[in-house]
């Protein structure tokens, strides 16, 4: 057995002959039916401190308004009024908080690769029914990433030579993925984090007081916020796409969170999860499904 850095308890558990599995009975039965043999519950953890307030965080408005980008999306907004006053926000900025994204991705990928390491330990071809959670641990600034799933061997195939594949799906839904002509490759997660520093117009419009400043009587679109929200979705999708190679993302789930510190001062987060799958045969449509009415 190759040396690993798994905890001793994990190695002991995985080396015993009995298997554990996170699948329920129906999914377990479906897996066996498909020729997938569960060999163990595998998991990975990573506790991270979020470096929100670290240097370069630009958390205080007193820091340089044009601090430049940290290698991501950045856009500046300039006051159209030509006013100079301590209370008038003459500048505004949207920027991508790449350091927040990097911390999140580091936590996710570390726990994911630890799970794969356990799966490799038991000689699995893949991991099915993956569940991933991100929870606050003990202290507001410490976040734990936990990923687990059930390692399976494909009966009738030689021992794996490549790292195990993984998928959030299990049971019948996994079987339908193969029927649709896709092979699972891996679970995928990506994040986008954007900070909005409102300039005067955004502040007034978000506060419902834009009309007198904008010289317009009707409702107005709040461009800075619309752009920031759109960018968050776009970046989350691009970051996920960057992990796909020539494969596709299926069963995607986009979770959005928004926090307003002051009028127009927002923090926006978008997390996209999904299954990376690869087409292994030509498109072959099913027959049009038969419509039924159930008599109960």
């Amino acid at each position: 057995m190759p040396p690993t850095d798994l905890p001793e308890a994990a190695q002991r558990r995985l080396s015993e002959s009995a298997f554990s599995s996170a699948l329920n009975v129906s999914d377990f039965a479906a897996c066996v039916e498909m020729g997938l043999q569960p060999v163990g519950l595998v998991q990975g953890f990573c506790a991270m401190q979020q470096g929100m307030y670290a240097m370069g965080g630009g958390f205080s408005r007193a820091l340089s308004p044009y601090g430049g980008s940290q290698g991501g999306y950045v856009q500046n907004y300039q006051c159209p009024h030509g006013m100079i006053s301590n209370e008038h926000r003459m500048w505004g900025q949207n920027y991508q908080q790449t350091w927040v994204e990097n911390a999140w991705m580091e936590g996710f990928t570390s726990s994911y690769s630890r799970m794969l390491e356990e799966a490799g330990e038991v000689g699995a071809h893949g991991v099915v029914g993956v569940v991933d959670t991100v929870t606050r641990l003990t202290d507001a600034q410490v976040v734990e990433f936990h990923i687990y799933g059930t390692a399976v061997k494909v009966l009738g195939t030689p021992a794996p030579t490549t790292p195990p594949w993984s998928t959030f799906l299990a049971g019948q839904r996994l079987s339908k993925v193969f029927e649709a002509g896709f092979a699972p490759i891996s679970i995928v997660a990506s994040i986008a984090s954007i900070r909005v520093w409102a300039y005067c117009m955004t502040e007034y419009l978000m506060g419902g007081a834009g009309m007198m400043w904008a010289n317009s009587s009707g409702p107005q679109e709040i461009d800075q916020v619309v752009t920031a929200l759109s960018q968050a979705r776009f970046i989350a999708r691009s970051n996920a796409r960057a992990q796909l190679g020539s494969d596709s993302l299926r069963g995607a789930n986009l979770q959005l969170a928004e926090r307003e510190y002051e009028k127009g001062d927002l923090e926006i987060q978008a997390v996209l999860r999904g299954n990376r799958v690869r087409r292994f045969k030509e498109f072959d449509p099913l027959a049009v499904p038969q419509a039924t009415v159930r008599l109960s």
Partner: protein
Amino acid sequence: MSLETPKTSLDVKAEILRAVASLAQKPPATGTSTSDLSIDEELNLHSIGWEPVELVSGLSVFSAPAGMWNWGQGEIVAASEAHQRAFNNAITRLNNEAAKAGGHGVVGVHVERQVYSTHIEISLLGTAVRPVGAKPVEALHVFVSDLSARDFTLLMVAGWQPLGLATGASFVYAPRRSVGTVLQQQSQNVELKNYTEAMYSARETAMERMQRDALALKGDGVVEVKLFEGPMSFASHAVGFAVWGTVVRLAKESHHSVHPTAVVSLNDVDVAFDSAVLA
């Protein structure tokens, strides 16, 4: 009518072996796609020769004057206008994003709306779809629909096509009664006619606006209309109504009946495992 057996009965075990063997090969250089449809929805799309292309979104945030919610009579015009324009801009952005990705339409659109005292936010998220391998079309011809891929399939099989989302909103001031009237009516069971009339007209106005959208899209009707109504948490005398639904048109000469077969399930009642709910 006899029960037909499926066209092909796939040997899943053999498919899995084939899939696993393919992983050792060089991946094919096919185009990538993204989708938030379930696998069942994707198989439904496959059955009518459609495929998902890209996860797309469109959104808009409109400002509304802060003080407008409290005093006035009749419709709160600025709020209705902000809602309508935000919804329309979000739809246009979704259309453009889907067209850019090569989609012919967007299905399963999730609509999220937030009405605050100072701004209104509309956010749409769905999956762009197209007939397998079809060429891109102009944004003008891309439809947006909040029907699930399953309902979209059923609609297409029945000879109908979705044309777009129609929406309407109306915000009104709940009428205030004079002190005298309040005292007079305090101990009576009585219809508050001014209330009834105000609510009636606001609801009809919202529906009328939606219908106008549907006619502009040259639709025959609107399906899956959702109606949201209720008081504004931040204003004691304001009520809002919002409706939207998918505009459809009969694409073939006549409606094609799907002739459902009656079935009796022999399954035990049980709840399937869903790993997503554990997250």
